[in-house]
């Protein structure tokens, strides 16, 4: 008897599980020959709402982890991705990317994770510091994670794009909800499977598929979201995101980069999603009062 191939259902990734969209909707993804290659969940505002709850729940634990441990986990994601290279290359090819370009993209994606893995326990030292003050205080500033970040991922880069925005976000201790590329969503969902097997706690990364047109306003007006990273070109959507962000003074970033380039990976992206906390600690001012060690 001829065997029927088992096709994957592309679902969402929320709170460490793979639910279908609560709306029950989907859209059909076509290849260049106008053949259907997958049915993709058309995520709704309620899926986003659930994802925010999951991300908020995961934030405390993730941000409280030792920076070194976060680095280990990011490295683990890279390891898992390395082991599934073929699958990602095939998926990219399926979506119309040339084989050599696809191989290049997957390799870059892995390297990018390793790059940010290394930064996890270093950026705080680099960007934090001790400040000279005029009173008897030890005064120091350190970056701290902002909280829940809503990200609308780049449209034209299905794997490298999404990894390039997730990695700096979670490396700094934030949790996030990402809307995958509308035209290239398959790798995002498969990447969720990598995350689910890489010691990343459920809820730290939540991945939705769907349209920015429908979801950008919800991403930017939810009161429990602390920052929005928007990586699409649509001018009207950008304006709406910026305006909505004012509602609870969200940090709004438009990351327009060519993610293929090496300079598109840098610790300043981590710092975009950090708040600076300054602490004044009273101390004896050695020398002034004649005191000595």
């Amino acid at each position, binding site marked *: 008897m001829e065997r029927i191939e088992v096709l994957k259902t592309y679902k969402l990734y929320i709170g460490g599980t793979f639910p279908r969209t609560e709306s029950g909707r989907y859209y059909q993804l076509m290849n260049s020959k106008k053949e259907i290659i997958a049915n993709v969940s058309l995520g709704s505002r309620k899926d986003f*709402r659930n994802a*925010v709850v999951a991300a*908020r729940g995961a934030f405390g634990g993730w941000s409280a982890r030792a920076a070194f441990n976060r680095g280990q986990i990011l490295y683990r994601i890279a390891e898992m991705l390395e082991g599934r290279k073929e699958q990602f290359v095939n998926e990219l090819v399926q979506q119309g990317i040339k084989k050599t370009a696809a191989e290049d993209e997957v390799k870059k994606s892995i390297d990018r994770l390793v790059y940010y893995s290394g930064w996890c326990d270093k950026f705080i030292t680099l960007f934090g510091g001790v400040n000279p003050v005029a009173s008897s205080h030890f005064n120091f500033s350190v970056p701290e994670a902002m909280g829940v970040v809503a990200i609308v991922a780049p449209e034209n880069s299905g794997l490298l794009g999404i990894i390039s925005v997730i990695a700096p976000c979670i490396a700094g201790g934030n949790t996030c909800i990402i809307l995958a590329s509308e035209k290239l969503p398959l790798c995002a969902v498969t990447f969720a499977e990598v995350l689910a097997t890489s010691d990343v706690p459920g809820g730290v990364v939540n991945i939705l598929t769907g349209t920015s047109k429908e979801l950008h306003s919800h991403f930017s*007006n*939810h*009161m*429990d979201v602390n920052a929005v990273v928007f990586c699409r070109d649509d001018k009207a959507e950008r304006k709406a995101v910026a305006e909505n962000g004012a*509602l*609870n003074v969200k940090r709004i970033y438009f990351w327009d980069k060519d993610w293929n380039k090496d300079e598109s990976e840098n610790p300043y992206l981590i710092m975009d999603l950090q708040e600076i906390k300054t602490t004044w600690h009273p101390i004896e001012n050695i020398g002034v009062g004649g005191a000595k060690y």
Partner: protein
Amino acid sequence: MPRFLNESGDSIPAFSLYLSLNFIFMGSIIDIPDFRLSPVVDQVGIEERISRFTARSIKKASKVQALKLTLTMIDLTTLEGKDTIGKVKQMCYKAAHLCDQLAGIPTVAAVCVYPTHVRTAKKSLEGTGIKVASVATAFPSGNSTRNIKIEDTKYAVAEGADEVDMVISRGEFLEGNYNFVFDEIAAIKEACGKARLKVILETGELSTLDNVRRASDIAIYAGADFIKTSTGKISPAATMPVTLVMLQAIKDYYSKTGIMIGMKPAGGISTAKLAINYLVMLHETLGQKWLSNEWFRFGASSLANDVLMQLGKETHGVYQSKDYFSND
């Protein structure tokens, strides 16, 4: 307090009640049933019924009304060893001012505290119309002597409690000493005076739905004004199946006697969505008459904020954050 009379009309002590006895309530004679013969519960049927309640679509205006009704039904609760006067005062303020930045928000029904905090709560809530409920009878275990439980109750009432939440002796119940449980509830009811009595069955310790039904019947016939699922100290606390079984006991009693009994699920109800599911269940089991805080309460501490967040969403059109609501 219902008077217990035998068939010739002589008053008899509660502990000597037997099967064929009856009591007179507001002029009508009510048979005390044999609690060993309480109806058995079809667990699969109950779960099937629950799955229907949770599938109702409640939208827009109805949802807002349900949310506000939920707020009016909340018994805002703090029952911890670490409760302080400050904590109780703060909670009482919250009870009266749930969310001043949203218009048209009602107050909760009551606050629920330990007897030693009743006086503080009573004073803090003066003029608000919010009731003070107090747990009593060696809450939460209920392991103490009858006299101490009665004293505990009298103390709470003397301090100003409008409502008393008692716990039944689960051990005695599970040993089959139904008369003991019945008499205890009747005795506490007497000690309550004018205060309304809520009887906590602690369903998480009763193991089966059949036991829940039997305990509900005992509590109702012994004089409970409300039956309540849980102390909140045992997991599982309130669940929809046990609440449905208790609502059915109330319904059967009502159809037999015409007397309404209140229901209070407590513990574990922390989301607005779940609360609305309970209201659907209440409405479809007991009907419109029970849809007020005189006959239905939620024992909860974190439910109020979630409901407020949903009302905020309905008012402002955007999802809300806990950051903008008070902690207690």
